[in-house]
């Protein structure tokens, strides 16, 4: 039991913090917001050169063999700079799903390219009727003579428009049409029958919804051997929630730091806002909640490799708790900035919106407290 970061982890944090502070300025963010991709491919190349894209990929698959702690270190730095590069979509979700489910050939075709920065991935799983139930998939994959045909609709596909390949979940339809096992498919961008409705994502980056109408795929588009993909999806999403939690911590810390500075400078009634006890105690509560969130993100990362129930309880607990803390810190940051906090003239709103998006992704606090209770045997989910 030791929670002291290794020298490598300390160095990674320093270099990530430095790179993000120098690169992701407010001006940069405005430019990225107008980019059709929602981010800068030139910076993505730099991520590759820094080794960040290879970091969580295993050494056998051409990566550096880092784990959830290293991902958390990067994500926290990304949160501080509101980075909109598709690290979550391509690396934390996409590459992890391929690593988790793919055949040797699929891994070799995809993972080294991800590590080089030459391939963008996206994960199309959520459906409107599913809300946040990972097992609820209505999209079907019907077997054909030489492969599959996919039909259905997906929502909240992060960075779908930038992706060269989209990993789509579907239920394999039996001969009699009844839906069977959940499977994952690698769908190339621009496949006939695939329609994207791209949008600017709340808090930065892009998202889309996806319609699939008889999208024809070869047999080897199926990730892996066709065994049930739900356990892998749950594992990867739990790890993604730990990563998102770390990103939220970076966002919350920046909001706290900014708000703290503002309350020292802003004078009302002849004294700084921070001279008022009601403000001081609010800030103390914000600081405590940032710290609790930090603990929960670290915990979820440390438990990322645990058996499914322990991992799921840690991830659900983290998502629920960090979501609750994030809402509080975000709302109080706006509140303590007064009317300026609700304008686009300050950065506060951008950070606020990214936290709101965080809370929504993969389900909010109420959903994850329910999931935690269910995994703890306290009630039906």
């Amino acid at each position, binding site marked *: *039991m030791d929670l002291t*970061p290794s020298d490598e982890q300390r160095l990674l944090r320093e270099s990530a913090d430095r790179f993000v502070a120098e690169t992701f300025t407010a001006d940069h963010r405005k430019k990225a917001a107008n980019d059709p991709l929602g981010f800068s491919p030139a910076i993505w190349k730099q991520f590759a050169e820094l080794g960040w894209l290879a970091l969580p990929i295993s050494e056998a698959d051409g990566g550096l063999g880092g784990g959830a702690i290293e991902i958390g270190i990067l994500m926290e730095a990304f949160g501080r700079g509101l980075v909109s590069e598709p690290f979550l979509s391509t690396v934390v979700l996409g590459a992890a799903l391929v690593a988790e489910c793919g055949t040797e050939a699929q891994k070799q075709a995809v993972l080294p390219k991800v590590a080089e920065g030459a391939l963008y991935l996206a994960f199309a799983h959520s459906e409107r009727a599913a809300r946040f139930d990972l097992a609820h998939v209505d999209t079907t994959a019907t077997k054909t003579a030489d492969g599959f045909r996919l039909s259905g609709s997906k929502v909240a596909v992060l960075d779908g428009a930038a992706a060269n390949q989209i990993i789509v979940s579907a239920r394999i339809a039996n001969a009699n049409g009844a839906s069977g096992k959940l499977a994952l498919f690698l769908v190339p961008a621009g496949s006939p029958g695939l329609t994207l409705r791209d949008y600017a994502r709340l808090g930065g980056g892009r998202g889309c919804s996806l319609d699939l109408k008889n999208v024809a795929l070869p047999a080897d588009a199926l990730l892996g051997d066709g065994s049930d993909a739900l356990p892998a999806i749950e594992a990867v999403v739990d790890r993604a929630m730990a990563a998102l939690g770390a990103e939220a911590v970076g966002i919350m810390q920046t909001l706290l730091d900014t708000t703290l500075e503002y309350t020292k400078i802003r004078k009302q009634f002849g004294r700084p806002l921070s001279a008022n006890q009601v403000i001081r*105690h609010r800030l*103390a509560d914000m600081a*405590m909640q940032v*710290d609790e969130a930090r603990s929960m993100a670290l*915990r979820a990362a*440390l438990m990322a490799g645990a058996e499914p129930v322990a991992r799921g309880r840690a991830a659900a607990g983290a998502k629920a*708790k960090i979501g609750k803390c994030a809402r509080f810190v975000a709302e109080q940051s706006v509140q303590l900035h007064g009317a300026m906090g609700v304008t686009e003239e300050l950065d506060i709103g951008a950070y606020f919106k990214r936290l709101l998006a965080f809370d929504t992704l993969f389900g909010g606090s109420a959903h994850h407290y329910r999931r935690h209770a269910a995994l703890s045997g306290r009630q039906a989910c």
Partner: protein
Amino acid sequence: MDLTFSAEERAFEQDVRDFISANLTPEMKRATALTPSVFSDPDIGMAWQRALHRKGWGAPGWPVEHGGPDWTPAQRWIFEAESARAGVPNVNVMGVKMVGPVIIGFGSPEQKNFYLPRILSGEDYWCQGYSEPGSGSDLASLKTRAVRDGDDYIINGTKIWTTHAHHANRMFALVRTNDGERQQDGISFILIDMKTPGITTRPILTIGGDHEVNQVFFDDVRVPVANRVGEEGKGWTYGKYLLEFERGAGIASAKLREALRTIAELAESDVTGRAIEDPDIALRMSEVEVDIDALEMTELRVLSALQTGQNPGAVSSVLKLRNSEIRQAVTRLGVDVIGNDGLAVEPARPFYKLNHEPAIPEELLPVVPEYLNGRAYTIFGGSSEIQREIIAKMVLGL
């Protein structure tokens, strides 16, 4: 970074379990479970302290030269977690965790030689003389005065909220020896034999029905100057050092987890009509458990960063605040879990020595008193409002 224990740590965990199962009697366990106040009665607590001392585990946080076991942070963690899980009695924390570190840090060689072994062995039972009727959160405004008379101080005044003063044979107290420019100046830290003539103790019953705290009066009480710890007038510094130990550097999450487990067991049992089937109860239980997870991780982070015996500093305020708030959430949940049985008041104490059949199942007796007494968690040791002020000042630099 790693949450798992090494083979050596696992072996130590087994040692702790073996020790507990060999020494924790069913009577001690039952008495602890049925105690609704913050501290165990001394007959139970000191029996445990003696057992720990025999093993060399009497003061986990002390340096080796004073009888500490020289544990790594992970070992301290394991010890606290296993102790909480097994439901061991509370020892006299005023001795081991409060005055002990101050004597180690600032006491004379004579004081160390005399007092420390007696704390370890359980021979001495300490109480804390800090608060006064006029000085609650504003502790430094204290008025109990010690006037120098040759080799003695003559003490006059009163202390209040003194936990277990009616059991203690010794008190450490903050007294005013001078009127300094600031009210923090002129305070001295002094060790008092409770049998000294002129000391009287008045019991104060708390709303849960327990006699835990007292008011203590000093009427021309003569205490040798040799009983002062450190320099005259520097008592505030030593007192604050102690408060940081009182608030933090402890491992509170293990006890919270055990308290929640007790409530969860009641909720899953027929004795509460299976309260857990109420979805609101189930969700709140998860919410509290997740809060405990967060506190536990923060404690582990602090523990990893600290050297044994080092002053935990302002983070202790964060730990104290969260511990007290979560403790209250657990006890509140307990009241809701037992439902109608919470209406029955049992005035007799202690619950483990009742000489009549209680009106409700025995295990439900402490639940409401724990909630009621537990309101004090956010008040004692510096109220939550004081802790927020410390965080604003020391952590946020405001």
